[in-house]
């Protein structure tokens, strides 16, 4: 498959796709007897003319298999459908249409660009992670998209997404995801080696995704990482990819082996990274003598050998912070083993 630049950029991390996105879209629509312009008809006239209409998804990036669909984004003064696209089969192939409120999107993109850190610590750990992921992924999908219609303002905004800063943030995001898996794998290795092995595998896969993103393959879904490595001609990294998938099921591979692999791919973590742990929703604790009963939704739980657990807080904020290398206190390791905490990795405030 031919590799080409999706857009010209002034910085190192120019977005790359397989083939030319506009050509990929036209070829895909052509196979179904349509043109990209027919996609505009999928946007209900009752919504008015969108300020920006973009076709994106794995088809456009050139990763598609025969079951792939086209993601259509209509940005304007519309109700935001958020995560739930409207599905249409009218043109033959499946079309997922997402409506995005332009005021909200403008704010989100400004926030993303101007935030000094990709993921800052403090606040509700899991919620902050989810919000950042949603906005980053949305921005990347739009960056890769073929513009079907736009106002001058939105044409400029869409073009600015391809100038390198967004791909730089994507690289950092995937690195954080690799370290988040690695930290949890280290914590759980003594108590749940099977789960630790899966997390170690994921740490390697996310580190590989950071490498492909650094080469410009920043499309936001890690399942295409082998396709990207092949496009880069990196047989050595494809071998690492397969080793990762094998190690997922091998509890005899120590997590420290993954430390070395991840270090080799993305380097050592910067010193300002912080690990945070927050209770997951539905957790309640009950003191029982020298121990504490921990339950979730009152349907599943365990008994911890300590009477000193941090109080449950319902705002999702951290109950513990530490460094990546730190051994967690035993109560925290037990909570992690019971699946009662959400573990995050982010940057400390400067």
């Amino acid at each position, binding site marked *: 498959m031919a590799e080409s630049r999706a857009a010209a950029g002034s910085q190192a991390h120019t977005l790359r796709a397989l083939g030319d996105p506009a050509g990929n879209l036209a070829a895909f629509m052509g196979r179904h007897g349509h043109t990209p312009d027919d996609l505009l008809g999928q946007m209900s006239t009752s919504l008015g003319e969108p300020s920006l209409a973009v076709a994106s998804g794995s088809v456009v990036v050139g990763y598609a*298999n*025969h*079951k792939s669909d086209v993601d259509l984004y209509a940005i304007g003064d519309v109700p935001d459908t958020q995560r739930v696209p409207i599905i249409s089969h009218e043109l033959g192939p499946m079309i997922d249409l997402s409506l995005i409120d332009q005021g909200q999107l403008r704010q989100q993109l400004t926030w993303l660009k101007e935030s000094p850190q990709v993921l800052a610590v403090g606040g509700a750990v*899991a919620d902050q*992670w*989810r919000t950042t*992921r949603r906005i980053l992924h949305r921005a990347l999908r739009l960056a890769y998209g073929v513009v079907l219609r736009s106002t001058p303002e939105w044409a400029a905004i869409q073009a600015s997404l391809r100038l390198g800063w967004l791909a730089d943030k994507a690289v950092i995001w995937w690195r954080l995801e690799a370290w*988040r*898996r690695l930290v*949890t794998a280290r914590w*759980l290795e003594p108590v*749940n080696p*099977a*789960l630790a092995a*899966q*997390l170690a*595998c994921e740490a390697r*896969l996310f580190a590989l995704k950071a490498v492909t993103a650094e080469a410009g393959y920043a499309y936001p879904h890690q*399942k*295409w*990482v*082998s*396709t990207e490595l*092949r496009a880069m001609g990196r047989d050595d990294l*494809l071998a690492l*990819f*397969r080793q990762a*998938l*094998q190690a*997922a*099921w091998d509890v005899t591979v120590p997590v420290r082996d993954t430390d070395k692999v991840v270090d080799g791919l993305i380097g050592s973590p910067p010193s300002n990274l912080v690990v945070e742990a927050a209770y*997951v*929703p*539905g957790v309640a604790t009950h003191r029982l003598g020298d121990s504490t009963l921990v339950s*979730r*939704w009152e*349907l*599943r739980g365990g008994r911890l050998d300590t009477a000193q657990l941090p109080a449950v807080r319902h705002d999702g904020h951290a109950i513990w912070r530490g460094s990546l290398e730190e051994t967690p206190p035993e109560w925290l390791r037990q909570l*992690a*083993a019971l*699946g*009662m*905490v*959400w*573990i995050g990795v982010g940057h400390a405030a400067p």
Partner: protein
Amino acid sequence: MQRLDDTRRWVTERAAGIVRLTLTCASLREDTEGGVQAADFDYAAYVARELILRTLSVASVCAGGELELDETQTTFDWFEGVSDDLIAEGSGLALELVGQGPADAEEWLARLSGFVAKAEAMLDLGHPVPDSRASDEMFASLALARDWIDVCAELGGPVIAIAAP
């Protein structure tokens, strides 16, 4: 007649298992089949690992495991309470795809279906879960999920936690 020790947990387990099978597993099966049929075993191995973990989580939820599948939560345990035999079957299937892929792709896909069916049988519904990918079964699968989620809500179960995997 079937005696149940804890009706709220029993209904919540089944509702959670049905949602996992009809939503997450269905699309991952489609991805896996697409990859295997295109002989892209690297892609297929990636998505099959995710499918196999989610299938094991259906067996886990029926064995006292976690009810809320949050795949962004790194501490979520796919294996809690699952028998060693079923884990070995899943890992065997996953490992066969890595590298050259299975000698007979169709036979591998048939064994994958058998593996998913074993986890599905643990829900003890007395009938297969309709295929949410098939146009003639899509509404039946949605109706099944809705019915169990409704009863879960009536019993005061954590509907929010299980309805959006």
